[in-house]
């Protein structure tokens, strides 16, 4: 079976995505927390629009919804299908309503393995989440596995 790894893919090791910033609203946290508990989200106007909302702490995995920008130029993805291989989070402080979170992803490794779905491409990256003051809120080491149908075939 021929390899899907290319020198172009290897050249992304050490590359960082452009920073992208998200403002975290009270309503967004309420919806995220409800989704984790399998509850319908509360139907209410956003308390942030009504003066002094009660403090609301997000489930820490809300960080995963703050998606990093694409690499520029984009990573030459060979496959269409993607699986999440796992994550290792370090949380420095909770995410709360009103936060502005800036996200940067650094590619740390790219390699190929063969699995039940045929050749699989593993990408190891570290995502850093910083607040308005530039202080780290959390880091995530993640493993993404792409496999299956060729990119652009579906």
């Amino acid at each position, binding site marked *: 079976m021929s390899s899907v790894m290319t020198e172009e893919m290897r050249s992304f090791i050490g590359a960082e995505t452009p920073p992208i910033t998200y403002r975290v609203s009270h309503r*967004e946290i309420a*919806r*995220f927390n*409800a*989704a*984790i*508990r*399998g509850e319908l*989200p509360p139907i209410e106007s956003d308390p942030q629009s009504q003066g002094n909302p009660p403090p609301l702490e997000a*489930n*820490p*995995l*809300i960080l*995963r*919804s703050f*998606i990093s920008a694409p690499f520029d130029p984009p990573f030459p993805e060979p496959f269409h*299908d*993607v*699986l*999440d*291989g*796992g*994550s*290792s*989070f*370090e*949380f420095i402080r*909770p995410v709360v309503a009103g936060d502005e979170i800036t996200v940067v992803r650094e590619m740390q490794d790219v390699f190929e393995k063969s699995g039940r*779905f045929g050749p699989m491409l593993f990408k190891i990256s570290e995502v850093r989440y910083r607040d308005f003051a530039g202080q780290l809120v959390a880091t995530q080491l993640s493993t993404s596995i792409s496999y*299956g*149908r060729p990119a652009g075939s*579906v």
Partner: protein
Amino acid sequence: MSKIHFEDVEVGDEIDPVRQNVTPRQLVQYAAVSQDFTPIHYNTAYAQGAGHDDIIIHGALKTALLSQMLADWAGGIGALKKLETSYRGIDFAGEISCTGSVTSKRVEDGIGLVDVDVQFRNSEGSVTTPGKATVALPKRDE
């Protein structure tokens, strides 16, 4: 929600488990709030085309459910410091459970830290996503 302190915890303690019926609606809800619109999580035909039996639970949702179990256990006064998960099996929508137990405890820089092994289990009780976590718990004199 009970408040648990560092002194209350012993090695071997079980974390209060979470049992939940993860429905297709919840997966759609999670897709919306997480921005993960990969169709294998809500489109059965697409998931089957990708080689799966049915729509599958997002890996990050499994981690989020484990983190919620730990947050509920810590009673709103502890803080999750680390969480590592490894997705070793695919889970389909349906009954799932999250479990965990304390493996060690220590004080670092005056902060009480508790290490926990956690498990995400499918409807048959098999562990599909093991993990390790560290939770900071306040001491009684704080």
